[in-house]
């Protein structure tokens, strides 16, 4: 019998012993158990280490980018946050709010944030000419060196592995030291739960793979959310191609809310 044109030895294939289904399944089972066991003996840590190393740049640390030039002061972020996080409606409890800055020609700086910007801003009565105006969305900066975390006497305020600063409401004793320690006025005291509360980056949404509510509703994409450590996401792009500022850098709190086009007058 002549060999086929492709040169493969079809003849010898037939000489293999036929494998019946039962043997095949048995061998497959042994292999499926054996391989992991073998791998665990043979330098699995190194294999994992390689994996970690290749992902090292992708360590998950959440952060937010805010482009001041894109914010139109609609206040939808503040409203969405209140809805999403069960924040009381009163105009003095906010996880996030929007400030309007008017820098007049005479150097006077007028700032306001009526109801956190939720109802929009009343027309500004121009006096003495206007030099610059802009809106600044504010929220907890989820500081790497968070003063609120430092001062909490019982450790009810903590930083998660992915960089979010949270409050354990079951544990907070309600002393209010964190409210005093936050330089950004980002914390408030819940009049019903009697504990300190703040922005969580919508941690419950992050767990489901969603972005924070304020980011989702922003009509101009002034807010971006993502992994600060990752190199290929919109936040990384934002951080690479803008001049970035953080609030009150002299306090060395190392905020993870990054502003582009932030005016020096903003505190």
């Amino acid at each position, binding site marked *: 019998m002549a060999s086929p044109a492709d040169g493969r030895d079809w003849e010898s294939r037939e000489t293999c012993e036929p494998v019946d289904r039962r043997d095949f399944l048995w061998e497959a089972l042994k292999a499926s158990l054996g391989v992991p066991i073998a791998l665990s003996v043979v330098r699995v840590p190194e294999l994992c280490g390689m994996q970690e190393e290749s992902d090292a740049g992708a360590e998950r640390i959440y952060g937010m980018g805010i482009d001041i030039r894109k914010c139109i002061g609609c206040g939808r972020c503040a409203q969405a946050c209140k809805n999403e996080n069960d924040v009381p409606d009163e*105009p*003095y409890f906010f996880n996030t709010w929007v400030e309007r800055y008017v820098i007049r020609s005479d150097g006077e700086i007028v700032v306001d944030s009526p109801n956190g910007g939720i109802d929009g801003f009343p027309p500004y009565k121009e006096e003495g000419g206007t030099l610059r105006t802009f809106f600044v969305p504010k929220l907890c900066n989820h500081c790497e060196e968070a003063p609120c975390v430092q001062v909490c*006497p019982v450790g009810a305020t903590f930083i998660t592995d992915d960089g979010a600063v949270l409050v354990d409401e079951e544990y907070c004793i*309600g*002393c*209010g030291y964190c409210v005093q320690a936050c*330089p950004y006025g*980002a914390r408030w005291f819940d009049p019903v739960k009697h*504990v300190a509360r703040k922005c969580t980056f919508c941690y419950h949404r992050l767990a489901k793979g969603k972005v924070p509510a304020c980011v989702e509703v922003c009509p101009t994409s002034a807010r971006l959310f993502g992994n600060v450590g990752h190199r290929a996401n919109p936040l990384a792009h934002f951080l690479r191609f803008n001049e970035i500022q953080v609030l009150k850098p002299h306090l060395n709190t190392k905020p993870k809310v990054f502003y582009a086009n932030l005016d020096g007058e903003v505190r």
Partner: protein
Amino acid sequence: MQGYIYPNEFELRWSLLIVLYPYLTGLVAGAFILASLARVFNVKEVEPTYRLALLTALAFLIVAPLPLLAHLGHPERSYEIFLTPNRKSAMAMFGFVYAWYLMVVLLLEIWFDYRRDFVLRAREATGPLKWIYYALTLGSTDLSDRALGFDDKAGRWITIIGIPSAFLLHGYVGFIFGSVKANPWWSSVLMPVVFLFSAIVSGIALVLIIYIVATLFRGKQVDMACADKLATFLFYAMVVDFSLEMLDFIHRLYESEESIEILSQLIEGRLFVSLIVLQMVLGTLVPLISLGVVSPALSWRGTRKVPAEVRRLIYLGCALLVQVGIFSIRWNVVIGGQLFSKSLRGLTVYKAELLGVEGLLMAGAFVILPFIILWLLVKIMPPWAENEIPTSPEA
């Protein structure tokens, strides 16, 4: 409201009760340091107030944490400060500092000082009082010279440990405020030192008031040598305290950091009455000048010769004014520090409520309570020299 404040700053988180906390703790530390003058530094003149100062410190120390507790959002979780303290938190150490001071310093010193009295009273008293005094001896009824000598020695050593502890107790309270870098009104390295000296001032003034008033009520003569010495020490402590405060003030003014504008507005507006009128003029300058003139602080017989009755009244008036001044200091620190926005662009207002947990009535109760406790303590453990029981021959 004036200017712009962050929306969350509308409500002041630390209210009148938190003003009381440093005020009461300061009285404790001050009274103890006064007691130590007699015990460790052998200032004989102030000996009539030694025991009174100790009991005053105890009465106020018992009450000092209560306003804190009442102010917590969840007082039922307060024990967590002991169980899971965050070691990085200044406040987390409160429980330990407090417990150390109460258990190791104050109670022990008082016990060693009064043990002989307890034993003698247990022997003399009848009925339940006998058992109360016996319980207070903790079963240690040995009155031999050796045992009494040990009491004295132990008390002395505890006072020596107690002085830095009293410094720690109140310096620490100052640190709680002074270490808040977010707040330019609080954030100052001088804060613990200023707190400490104002504590000494308030403690001496308080014991002076209690001593004069109690002596008059008991129909006895005020020991003027003692009152003069107390007034002299009060004067010295006030000079140091006032100098430190001025140093802090001038330092801030000279540095003129970005917060200077809003802080100036704060002082000229919201805090004018409590800072300039009450703290500076009435609480410091008036008593300082009066004491300087009347007491033997600057010259042996006082710059002006004043009859004892008048001098006594002036001391009492000064000490009362000092209390007003020190309370104002605490108010200006705690409330003042929250009246301006951390945006440094605006001021808010504080209105103390009358009723409620954080109201004026509650605060008033916390101020009166230590006096009631002190009255009880004085009944059980009279601190007066004439009540001293001569040691009967060993039974």
